[in-house]
């Protein structure tokens, strides 16, 4: 029994059906961790990108070093850091939030690169034309560059959403009851690992296919040349 739900190990198919509600509980945690991690990563990534683009070396250089560190170390390192080291400084978060934070921190590095690359991919001729028309730099960024960068940035961010989802099982090491962790516990209790793990695989496959289809739809709908203005 898990989450107050009993299962039936009569045969594999009955077993599979009976553990489906339990796996759904784990799926909810997985989806929540994915979305929260994505939002944290997207926001932190924006902050990082802004810092890296700063004119003062004293701001941009540490940001660049931090990005490199986050990209070159495993997610588990960030997770353990937040889980074991933060409490020593008085910050004790529930395991779930620590896990989502770790995902966000890890992926903020990649997402900051998405922002930077997206903005830099806009041809310099655009900035030059805006300057020739004596447009203020802030307006140039908001009205000329950003609407053209968004259709390039969003699909790339969407790909990282899928990556985050596939990294959520890592969070099981700090006892977060995400989908894979739940499946493993069922296996531990019943000695039947094949059924729950196969189901997890299938569920992940379905989720990834849905997410990828969603990203492709978004990619098609976003205008190639930028968000049209009036």
């Amino acid at each position, binding site marked *: 029994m898990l989450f107050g739900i009993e299962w039936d190990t009569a045969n594999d198919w009955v077993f599979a059906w009976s553990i489906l509600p339990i796996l759904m509980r784990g799926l909810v945690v997985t989806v929540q961790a994915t979305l929260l991690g994505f939002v944290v990563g997207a926001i932190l990534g924006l902050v990082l990108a802004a810092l890296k683009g700063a004119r003062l070396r004293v701001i941009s250089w540490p940001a660049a070093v931090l990005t490199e560190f986050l990209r070159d170390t495993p997610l588990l390192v960030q997770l353990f850091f937040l889980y074991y080291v933060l409490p020593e400084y008085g910050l004790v978060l529930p395991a779930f939030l620590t896990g989502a934070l770790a995902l966000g921190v890890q992926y903020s590095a990649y997402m900051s690169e998405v922002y930077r690359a997206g903005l830099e991919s806009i*041809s310099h001729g655009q900035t030059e034309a805006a*300057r020739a*028309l004596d447009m*203020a730099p802030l307006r140039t960024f908001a009205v000329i560059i950003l609407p053209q960068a968004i259709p390039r940035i969003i699909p790339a961010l969407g790909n990282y959403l899928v990556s985050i989802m596939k990294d959520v099982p890592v969070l099981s090491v700090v006892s977060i009851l995400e989908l894979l962790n739940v499946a493993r516990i069922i296996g531990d209790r019943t000695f039947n690992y094949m059924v729950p793990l196969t189901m997890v695989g299938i569920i992940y496959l379905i989720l990834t296919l849905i997410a990828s289809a969603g990203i492709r739809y978004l990619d098609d709908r976003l205008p190639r040349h*930028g968000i049209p203005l009036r």
Partner: protein
Amino acid sequence: MQEMNNPSDPATQASNPMILMEKVVKRFGDVTVLDALDFEVARGEKVTIIGSSGSGKSTVLRILMTLETINEGVIYIDGKPLWHEYRDGRLIPASEAHLRTMRKEMGMVFQQFNLFPHMTVLRNVTESPMHVLGLSRQKAIRRAHKYLDLVGMMDHLDKFPSQLSGGQQQRVAIARALAMHPNIMLFDEPTSALDPELVGEVLTVIRRLSEEHDLTMLLVTHEMEFARQFSDRVCFFDKGVIVEQGTPEELFTAPQKERTQQFLKSVM
């Protein structure tokens, strides 16, 4: 774009140049692109700059449009310093505020058009007059109509640049630059990126502009035949200096310097 002095009056030309570049040096890293350049353009004069790649001709235009800084020298636009400003009677490097004021005197048309692809033709032309010059929406649209009509693009107001041919895009780009009412128009190889059959429509617009308006116009081009018809003066640039300059008749039919002769032989 008002014309206050007769441009063909020699006294006016001599005393009050529209563009005055004094000993301008521009370096990109180790490469000196402009070498103590002295260059002058009179009010309302139409000047064509010719030369091979790397001669510095595009750099001159880009510096005037404040897209590039200068390493040494001073530039005056209508008597006012461009990359410098006066503080207590002395020249100091220009602040961004000064540059933003000076930039309004120049308009530029680029080889790659550089229209804003996410805006309609109309919005491309009204954007800066509305938000930089502060024109009301109605005034900006009326002004846009005037210049889009001049370049023959009134049937395409709601189209996006991707729906236009290169020649059409460049004509819109010309209207966009004109809508800011600059005193100087800079054309940086405006037809070099166009298919040959589209070149004519853009050159026609430029010629009509030169005949019907008193703008000071600087044109960098490889279209020698057009340069001959369009220009008051042709300047041949090489390695960052003006090798030779004169009327089209003087430069094209009787070039004095050997380098000029070599260049003209290779392009014509």
